[in-house]
Each structure stands twice: as C-alpha cells, then as structure tokens.
C-alpha cells in the first residue's frame, strides 16, 4: 500500500512535469481551432469507457457504451456493459430506459438539469472552450495531445465540480477524454474511441414519445 502511494505520487509528479503550458498566442490559436471544429460539428458518435471513483463506497465503477450527439440539442448516452441503461436527452425531454422499460421526464423547469446537460454536450464537443463566462481555460501540451483545463468561474458550477480536463486530439480537434473532478475529490474519466464526426444520424435514434 505504502509503495502504491509512492508510485502514484511519483507518477503524478512525472505527469505534471510532462505537461507544458501553451503560450498565450498558442493557447488562443488552439482554442480557436477547437471552437471552429465544434461549430462545424453537426453529429458525433463514439464508443465510451467511463470510470468513476466513489471513495465513500470504496469502489471504482467501470462502464462502457455508445454515445450519439446531434445538432446541439440531442444526446444519447447508452450504457452497454456491465448493465444496459439509456439516457436520452432531446430538447426539454429526457428518456431513461433499462430492461425494456422507459420513463420520460420533462426538464424545462429544472435549471440545474439544463446546466448539467449543457456542460455534458459542450464538453464532448469541445464547445465549452468558448464558454468564457463559465470557465477559466488553460491550455496545456501533453505529449501528442492538447489538454484544456477548465476551472468553473461561477459559484453554481463550482458546486458541481472543481475542474474539467479535456484531452484533445490536435489533428481532428475533438475531445478524446473528459476528466471531471468533484469537490469531494472523486474523479470521473470518460474515454472516447471510434469517434465519427458529421456522419448522418437518423432522427429516430433520438425519438422520445
């Protein structure tokens, strides 16, 4: 256990050393490129792996699934393993599905729900880099990727999480990993693979009765 802590500490120091903050000019250029790519994004689909540390329960939750996004208002988050569970957001409606059963919720009156949904969509598309009112953004270069570190400016957002780190592929200017750190220190890491941008997605995929 002692050695594990030591290895983790050394790894953290080495990782931090491997990160190079981008200059103001570089940073501006990187943000512009990511935002331009996000602006052109009509659809996005990928596989995801979600890892969540729950320190209170002394456990790590690992799940995998598929994600579909369309036109800034529809998001389908479909867990396929270890359990089947679907979260589908379309406009003001949310559909939750598991075991062939669905529940529909209206979210138009919930400000927090809307805020969380917006952050979810803006993080996976990279649009949150332009949310300068919401976040203080620092750009870093880490090996072959860019890392955007977002610290919430508003008190309301700071209550939900203390930091978001977006790992971005410089070639495609899309996010490949989202790390979300909570106030309690618990971390959620979402890794996205098989990313397909702007491929046609049928509206039926996002249909809510």
């Amino acid at each position, binding site marked *: 256990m002692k050695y594990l802590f030591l290895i983790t500490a050394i790894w953290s120091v080495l990782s931090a050393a491997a990160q190079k903050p981008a200059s103001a000019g570089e940073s501006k250029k990187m943000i512009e490129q990511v935002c331009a790519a996000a602006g052109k994004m009509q659809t996005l689909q990928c596989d995801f792996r979600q890892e969540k540390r729950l320190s209170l329960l002394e456990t790590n939750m690992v799940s995998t699934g598929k994600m579909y996004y369309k036109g800034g208002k529809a998001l389908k988050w479909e867990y396929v393993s270890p359990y089947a569970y679907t979260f589908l957001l379309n406009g003001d409606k949310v559909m939750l599905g598991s075991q062939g059963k669905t529940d529909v919720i209206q979210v138009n009156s919930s400000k*927090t729900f809307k805020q969380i949904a917006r952050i979810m969509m803006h993080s996976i598309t990279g649009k949150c880099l332009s949310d300068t009112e919401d976040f203080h953004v620092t750009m870093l270069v880490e090996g072959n990727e860019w890392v955007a570190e977002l610290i919430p400016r508003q008190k309301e957002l700071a209550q939900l999480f203390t930091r978001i780190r977006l790992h971005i592929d410089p070639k495609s200017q899309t996010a490949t990993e989202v790390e979300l750190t909570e106030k309690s220190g618990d971390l959620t890491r979402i890794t996205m693979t098989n990313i397909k941008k702007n491929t046609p997605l049928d509206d039926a995929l996002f249909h809510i009765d």
Partner: protein
Amino acid sequence: MPYSTSTSRNRRCLVRLVPALFLLANILPAKAQELRRYGAHITLPGGKGISGICIIRTDKDGGAMSLFNEFGIKAFDAVYSAGKDKVELRNVIKPLNRRRARKIIAKDMKCLFAPGKKTPKSRTIRHRDDGTLVLSNKRFKITYHLTPLKDVVE
C-alpha cells in the same frame, strides 16, 4: 489405544476445521457487504427532477449510497448508521442543499437502508414486478424511482 484413537480423530477434525474456519473468515465479510446498482430518477415538486445512477452498499453496521448523473456529476452521498438509525447526507448539489431538503431526503433514504423497519409517516414503498422500487413521500411530493441495473449476459 482408545485415547490415541480419539487424539488422532481430534487431529483429523482440527486439520479439517482450521481451513474451513479460515475460508469462512474470508467469505463472511464479502457476503455481509452488498452493493446494489439502480437506474434512478427523482421527481421533485414544481416539475423538477434528477436522473442518474444510484449505488447502494449495505453491511451490518449500516451502509452508504451515491447518486450521480450519467456524466458522473454527483447529486449527493448518504451514509446510514444502523446503530443511530440515522442517515447523513454529504456532497449535496445546490438545488437540494438546503437544510429542510436535506432533512427530508435523509429521512426518505432511511427507507432504502432499513427496508425491514416501519416506513416513516407519509412515505410509501412499492415494489413493481420488474423489480423497480418506488418510494413516495406524499407530504412533500417527492418520488424516487429505482430500477435495478442487472449485469448484461454476453
């Protein structure tokens, strides 16, 4: 002779008993601790609501739970002490982080940790055929829907 026979029998018993006890000591804590997963949605007054994943761990001393949304943002943690028969909420997000709301939710959550006990006033628990647990707080118009998330068989 009978003495020596009895000694060897005792030895044989001991040889079998020690590994058995050792095994039990390892198995019991795992059995005593249970982790349940649910797809959750909570409807609140005024058409507000929260959805997400709910993980509940129970053991002989009480239990703990976490409710977080699909993106990993936590709504709240709850810790149940069986000795005090009390639930304490931690890391509560803003719309719920009011003293009165925390008190009501903590009482509601007690029903999940101690299902065998008498349900507190104005609360009902229904178990649907599909395993969904519906906890209603009629007085404050809060409903908790918890649908078990079963492992997908590949």
